[in-house]
């Protein structure tokens, strides 16, 4: 192929997995095994070939198990260069956790509070987290505008009922 080396950005380089992926390999292997067992225990089809619904899941489970083993094998062969990067990750990991919790919270209250209130609250909170408390007024107004806009679009233009 005509891919000249060096023209690719960093992420494109290796064809094989890198050493830091050992944990990923173990997780993939475990998942593959669990899935294979679950696939084997699927109910057999009452009509036709009893193994009909089992072939594919079983094959997939085995495939993932093999992929996991190969990844593990490769991570063992290559010299592991452990890098301590936890401190660097800490700050944004927290932010992503908060955002995820917000999303789950949104899903929980969506039916209870209805679209308008829950979306307004969700957006305001999200915007304030990113932009800081000082700009709360801007955040809330953007959230309000957006919520009303979406609501109008769905209820009146697309005729999709929101709770």
């Amino acid at each position, binding site marked *: *192929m*005509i*891919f*000249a080396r060096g*023209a*690719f*950005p960093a*992420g*494109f380089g*290796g*064809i*094989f*997995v890198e050493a830091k992926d050992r944990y*990923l390999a173990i997780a*993939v292997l475990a998942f593959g095994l669990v*899935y294979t067992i679950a696939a084997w225990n*699927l*109910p057999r*089809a*009452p*009509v*036709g*070939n009893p193994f*009909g*619904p089992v*072939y*594919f*899941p079983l094959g*997939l489970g085995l*495939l*993932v198990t093999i*992929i996991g083993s190969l*990844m593990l094998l490769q991570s063992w062969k290559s010299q592991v260069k452990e890098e301590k990067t936890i401190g660097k990750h800490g*700050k*944004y990991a927290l*932010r*992503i956790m908060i*955002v*995820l919790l917000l*999303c*789950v919270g*949104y*899903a929980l209250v*969506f*039916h209870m509070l209805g679209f308008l209130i829950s*979306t307004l609250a*969700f*957006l305001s909170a*999200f*915007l304030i987290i*990113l*932009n800081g408390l000082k700009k709360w007024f801007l955040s809330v107004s*953007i959230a309000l505008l*957006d919520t009303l806009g*979406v609501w109008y679009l*769905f209820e009146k233009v*697309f*005729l*999709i009922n*929101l709770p």
Partner: protein
Amino acid sequence: MPTLEYLMYGFRVVFIPSNFLWLTLGCFLGTVIGMLPGLGPATGIALLLPLTFVMKPETALITMCAIFYGAMFGGSRSSILLNIPGDGSAVASCFDGYPMTLKGEAEAALAISAIASFIGGLISSVAFVLLALPLAKVALMFGPPEYFALMVLALTATASMSEGKILKGLLSMALGLMVAMVGLDPQSGVSRFTFGNLELQGGIDFVVVIIGVYGLGEVLKNLEKMGRKEVMQPIKKKFGRIWISKEQWRRSIVPILRATSVGFLIGILPGAGGTIAALMSYNIEKSLSKEPERFGKGAIEGLAAPEAANNACSIGAILPTFTLGIPGSGTAAIMLGALMIYGLQPGPLLFEFYPEIGWGVVASLFVGNVIAALMNLPLAGLLVRILAVPPKILYPLITALCFIGVYAINLSVVDFYLLIVFGLLGYAMRKFETPTAPMILASVVGRKFEQSFRQSLMLSHGDFSIFFKSGISITLLILAALSLIYPIVSGALKKRRHAI
């Protein structure tokens, strides 16, 4: 010549006011989405997908195509002006586009990128018209075993080519197929992996997977970058005349034509998307050039080639999607999903029974390219200001759009939790540098893939040799095997060369 008549019919469909309006809007949205760093055409189409449910199918598909190549036009704006690629396929545009800006040639850079994109798009559209019907006729020869083999090839090629990491590509593919397994098995009624949840019996809607991985996952990934003190270069806002000189045109035209054919062919191949097309054509130009040392320092042909290639590639990718039902890239997979939502079968019948869709889309490629070029040439300076919208406001709004979009599909909150799960998965996959395109492709075609496998076995009463009985399926399976073996062999060779 009937093809020409069909095409004229297609043009009439495109110029229906509502279609034309959406086409223009799609080009605009695509350009904007392509420009914003971190958001690519896949995200744009995924977010728009729920909105298109209220449109007529031809309008919806025309809009999606417009977003697709609009994003190819727009993706290079931030590459050229800021050295930040708007999406993967605009990476190669940074190599020479940004140096041109530094040299004070931003106007010429913006102009050549729009011109190259336009030429690449236009020539590919012609090729599309010429190839659509013959390719669709080939599909008529396909029975279940051949379809099975074709999908094996599409999936393995996507897994092995998407980003060069073959094991992770295969893993991503397997995950997508696993998603497709969830729910009631349509042939036997056995419920699989539903964990007793009634809502899961209908299966996981691939729209949720797409919006989760490309929408929410993308937002989460971008949250990471935020807050880090980014030194934003001041964006150039005043522009002179956005045009190129005769000398620059002379340098660029041959590379543009070469890159167009490379891009179109790569687009048709399953798996290899715009990123590979752009990088490959850049490398071809560099190796063919008499003065390769100019590359990377603002050579205009180094910008023109990848720009033409990624547009040609986006149109090439649509071709097998409509004619064979095998998408040529992740974004095209989403469009295949849209076709399936409307209950349309891609293939020859699509062009015969629904000419307004088949030929309407084809004609829209021509019209849309003109619109996108017009939008990008004189308005480039204006559009670039959109890059100044702070992401801190943008990403929360996109997140809300993801949720509303998912809700509009089934009016069910269960999909919210699935969205969060897939958003997290999409984020994790990006963290572990696992390509997402194979998973999207697999989750869209997964059910059909399994059906074709089991239908084949039913035809042969359980005899597996049916997959090796016809020349077509043997060839396709051999190609699939080669697509897996090739990267391993070439990787080993590379290692050996390094060792010496």
